[in-house]
């Protein structure tokens, strides 16, 4: 045949809108919704049910007028550590894939940021709401403290929600920065990174001790309050985000 199919005239060099490109990353990170959403919710549900069953059983065997202990249990807080792992895996495994599929490092990281914010907001809302229900129902009717372990969770819903969001973003930030170090410098980077972190921690503590400033440190936390402290964590989160960006900007997944 003579009529060879007509090819597009030239490459369309107008980039697709930033939102589309970033959305592509978000879609990739949510491609298997089990990992970031369903699995953690399922685990959370199972732990909660088990706690309710066990605590209900304990309660049933105590005489109604007997000494009552509160069932305090921080079972919900595995979510934070879980999300740190999700962050590490996303950067470590989805990043090289996205680059191969024509994403830029920048678009990937922005997409990861959106992913982290969506999950943080969602889970914080869930925990804050559950804590509120728990408070209002007297610990699901049996005095169980599964979500409302600390005063902050028992305060206003909005405060609990804000605190939860900030805390989870911090975990995402730390996970992202750690994974970025790994993607760029592999095992060696990890050694240096953790050694540096330990050094900083011990060094910081030593410095505070030498200066005899523990009181001031304590005073800071008292002054800032729980929510204030969480607010200050935003500085660390932002630092982690910038670090992840600076590190990944020159990362070459090919080396892996």
């Amino acid at each position, binding site marked *: *045949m*003579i*009529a*060879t199919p007509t090819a597009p005239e030239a490459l369309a060099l107008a980039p697709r809108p930033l939102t589309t490109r970033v959305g592509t990353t978000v879609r990739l990170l949510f491609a298997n919704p089990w990992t970031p959403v369903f699995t953690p919710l399922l685990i959370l549900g199972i732990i909660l049910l088990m706690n309710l069953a066990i605590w209900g059983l304990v309660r049933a065997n105590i005489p109604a007028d007997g000494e009552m202990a509160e069932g305090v249990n921080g079972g919900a807080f595995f979510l934070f550590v879980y999300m740190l792992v999700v962050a590490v895996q996303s950067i470590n495994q989805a990043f090289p894939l996205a680059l191969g599929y024509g994403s830029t490092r920048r678009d990937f990281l922005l997409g990861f940021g959106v992913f982290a914010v969506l999950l943080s907001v969602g889970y914080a809302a869930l925990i804050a709401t559950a804590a509120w229900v728990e408070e209002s129902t007297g610990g699901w009717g049996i005095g169980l403290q599964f979500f409302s372990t600390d005063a902050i969770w028992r305060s206003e819903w909005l405060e609990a929600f804000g605190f939860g969001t900030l805390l989870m973003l911090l975990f995402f930030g730390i996970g992202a920065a750690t994974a970025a170090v790994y993607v760029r410098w592999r095992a060696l980077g990890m050694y240096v990174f953790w050694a540096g972190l330990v050094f900083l921690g011990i060094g910081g503590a030593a410095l505070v001790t030498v200066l005899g400033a523990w009181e001031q440190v304590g005073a800071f936390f008292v002054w800032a309050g729980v929510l204030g402290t969480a607010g200050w964590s935003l500085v660390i989160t932002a630092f982690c985000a910038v670090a992840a960006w600076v590190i990944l900007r020159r990362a070459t997944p090919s080396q892996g």
Partner: protein
Amino acid sequence: MDDGRPIFLQIAELVERQIIDGSLPEGEQVPSTNEFAAFHRINPATALKGISLLVDAGVLYKRRGIGMFVADGARDRLISERRARFTTEYVRPLLREGAALGLDAAALIDLIRKESPS
């Protein structure tokens, strides 16, 4: 397909052979370059090159938007071209090989007679 020569030449020759043996009659549409490419598992550009060779030689002609057809008189022209090359491509090598084996022209003619049907 492979006899070491460029594939587009082999494609062109294949079509020529089909025109000569009548399986592609004059006026008939020939397969598209993409069909050639898919059938012979070759690059479409290579197939196009082979077909273009035949268009340039007037063996095939294009009908815009429809396809490629065998030109009138293509068969006769191809046969006379082939006949012209027959001497160099078949007779001379035959004589050379025959001489190497001690068969002169008369002996070769005898052999040919014997092998010819009827």
